[in-house]
């Protein structure tokens, strides 16, 4: 079965092709096409996972092309990491597509949406299966393109189109770093294959200093920063909420942002070999995590809260990876994929039901949307780290790994972020589903196709954590490991995490159910902090002020330079050319042509004269002959 791994991305690709070319005719049938393809991929992925668990791995590649002494290969790698990712991606992708049937119902470009979704999932699957960095990069870019297409899916809205552009450009900045990193690595190691990279790094190759290694690791991490929305390139993710909610779910849970974490995990050997690089990863992670978490505290748009939550959680994964918790990071990536997809789809249901996105306008929706509210509660509990839900186990492992790294400041901040997470998630939950309805909203019930994915994801959110829990002997960590880790359950950390999570939930309950006046009073009293958070640390403004505007000025200057100097020169050349050719044309027309015509005319006139001699009358000729005779005689005789 492992041999057929290449089929997994081909199913969505086929669905994409079908939907792009025949989608218009398929109309509403385009969804089943995509879903069936995804189902096929999911089944194969699960079978492969089963085989991989029983100990099989496979790497197959063919030589793609050769440049000089470097050969480039194309192939796929099935090991525990990719098998796990395949299952997560296909499962979440499938559920999101099922959910989209209801959510996108009646959209003008219904078939195109499913085509893009299929392409998106295809790119992600390709990325996961790649066995070398170059192929990864190709699919990496494809993922970027798809995110652009999907975020600006409703491109009639200017904000959506802008968000798509922002996501794409921001990603490109990171991608440039990624490309430089992989080029550096390729130059020094002569291979882009992951397995070979690890192998060669293990032998400490000559000429590859620690500095270069760290540099290439950090450059590759740049790509991950862009894709996984880490500080300072996190700005695109909240704006990406302009896309349809299922897309957000997909981006946040399984495909786009997971790609960054996956890349770091995949090329973990490089990071592990460079000393500084892991620290960079963890610091970037904690900055992102803390910042995004604090911003999420005060946001009011339901999707934006979730977006910042995602950024924060991704930061968490980076912290885990940065502090050596390889399996913890990947574990959290998996559990997060489930509960974040769940939360986003819940938010989508809510938005679909009431047509607004501001949580201040909602409230008391519990009675009207029981399934959504219940599943959302499960998602919130999971992300807050309440045992025994999945988030608790993965978060616990991260905390353990941070704790084991010995950096207590980092540990404190991580705990703070956990606290903030619990608080803002329950703030969202309470404001949306509990209390009294603040505004009269017309609610229409979500379709069953939108409820079932929620239920399935909720089940996964509850139970997927057990695979990595100490109760099952850290099965996950033993399955996915970079180098054998021995994880001791740290009960102090576990208890502190539970306490922090519950404290956050309680505080949210106090603030938003018990006495709703407190938040407003706090906002008044600490208005500078509140404003800072509300405006997302003014990072967008800072970028605008210090990067975008100067850049625009530069481009304007370049434009005017182009316009007046270069265009002027070009135009001058053109004009003078035209003038010269005018003169040449005149000379040609009147002098050269005139000469030619004159000669022709002369010849013609001469012919006109002499053709009269050619009368065809024999007697004329005789007469002329004798005239000649007479003339000769006269000349000879009398002259």
């Amino acid at each position: 079965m492992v041999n057929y791994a290449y089929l997994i991305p081909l199913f969505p690709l086929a669905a994409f092709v079908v939907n792009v070319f025949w989608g218009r005719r398929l109309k509403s049938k385009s969804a089943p096409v995509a879903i069936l393809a995804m189902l096929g991929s999911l089944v194969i992925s699960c079978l492969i996972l089963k085989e991989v668990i029983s100990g099989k791995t496979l790497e197959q590649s063919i030589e793609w092309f050769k440049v000089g002494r470097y050969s480039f290969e194309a192939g796929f790698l099935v090991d525990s990491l990719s098998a796990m990712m395949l299952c997560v991606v296909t499962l979440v992708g499938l559920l999101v597509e099922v959910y989209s049937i209801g959510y996108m119902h009646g959209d003008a470009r219904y078939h195109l949406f499913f085509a893009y979704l299929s392409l998106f999932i295809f790119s992600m699957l390709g990325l996961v299966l790649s066995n070398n960095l170059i192929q990864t990069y190709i699919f990496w870019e494809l993922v970027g393109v798809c995110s652009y297409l999907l975020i600006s899916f409703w491109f009639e809205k200017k904000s959506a189109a802008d968000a798509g552009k922002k996501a794409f450009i921001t990603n490109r900045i990171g991608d440039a770093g990624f490309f430089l990193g992989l080029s550096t690595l390729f130059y020094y190691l002569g291979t882009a294959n992951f397995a070979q990279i690890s192998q060669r790094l293990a032998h400490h190759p000559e000429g590859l200093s620690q500095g270069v290694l760290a540099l290439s690791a950090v450059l590759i991490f740049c790509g991950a920063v862009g894709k996984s929305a880490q500080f300072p390139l996190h700005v695109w993710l909240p704006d990406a909420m302009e896309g349809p909610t299922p897309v957000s779910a997909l981006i946040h849970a399984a495909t786009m942002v997971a790609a960054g974490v996956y890349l770091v995990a995949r090329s973990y050997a490089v990071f592990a070999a460079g000393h500084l690089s892991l620290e960079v990863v963890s610091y970037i992670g904690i900055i992102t995590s803390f910042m995004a978490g604090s911003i999420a505290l005060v946001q009011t748009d339901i999707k934006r809260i979730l977006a910042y939550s995602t950024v924060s959680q991704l930061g968490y994964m980076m912290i885990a990876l940065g502090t050596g918790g390889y399996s913890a990071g990947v574990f959290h990536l998996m559990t997060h994929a489930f509960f974040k997809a769940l939360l986003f789809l819940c938010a989508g249901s809510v938005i679909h039901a009431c047509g607004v996105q501001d949580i201040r306008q909602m409230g008391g929706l519990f009675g009207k949307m029981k399934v959504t509210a219940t599943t959302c509660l499960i998602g919130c509990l999971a992300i807050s780290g309440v045992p025994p839900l999945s988030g608790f186990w993965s978060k616990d492992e991260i905390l353990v790994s941070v704790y084991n790294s010995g950096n207590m400041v980092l540990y404190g901040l991580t705990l703070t972020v956990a606290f903030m997470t619990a608080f803002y998630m329950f703030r969202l939950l309470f404001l949306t589903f509990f209390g009294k309805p603040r505004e009269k909203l017309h609610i229409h019930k979500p379709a069953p196709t939108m409820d079932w994915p929620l239920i399935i994801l909720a089940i996964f959110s509850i139970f997927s954590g057990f695979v990595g829990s100490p109760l099952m002997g850290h099965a996950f960590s033993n399955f996915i490991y970079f180098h054998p880790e021995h994880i001791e359950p740290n009960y102090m950390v576990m208890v502190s995490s539970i306490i922090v999570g519950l404290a956050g939930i309680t505080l949210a309950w106090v603030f938003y159910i018990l006495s709703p006046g407190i938040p407003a009073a706090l906002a008044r009293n600490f208005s500078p902090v509140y404003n800072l958070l509300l405006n997302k640390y003014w990072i967008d403004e800072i970028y605008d002020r210090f990067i975008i505007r100067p850049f625009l000025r530069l481009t304007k200057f370049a434009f005017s330079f182009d316009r007046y100097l270069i265009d002027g020169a070009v135009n001058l050349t053109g004009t003078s050319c035209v003038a010269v050719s005018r003169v040449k044309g005149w000379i040609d027309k009147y002098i050269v042509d005139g000469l030619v015509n004159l000669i022709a005319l002369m010849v013609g006139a001469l012919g006109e004269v002499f053709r009269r001699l050619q009368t065809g009358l024999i007697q004329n000729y005789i007469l002329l002959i004798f005239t000649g005779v007479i003339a000769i005689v006269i000349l000879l005789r009398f002259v």
Partner: protein
Amino acid sequence: MIPLSHYLILSAILFSIGLYGVFTRRSAIGILLSLEIMLNAVNINFVAFAKFMAPHSLAGQIFVIFTIGVAAASTVVGLAIIVAIYHNYKTIFVDEIDVMKW
């Protein structure tokens, strides 16, 4: 006794008359007749010169006999051609036979 020059003058006048005929006649037969006049003028020349310049030789007279023979032959062929042309073009006027003219 008639001097040689008078024969020659007669011959010259006859030749010129024949020439005029060749110039002006439209009919091919007319041109043929004018040619006969010219030939006769030449013959007179031959005989006169033979008599006055080489009295012991018969060459002049014999040459005239040959000339008459050739003239007869040419006339016969010419007339045959004229008759053939007349069959084809229904004319014997040389200025109307102009198929070769551009």
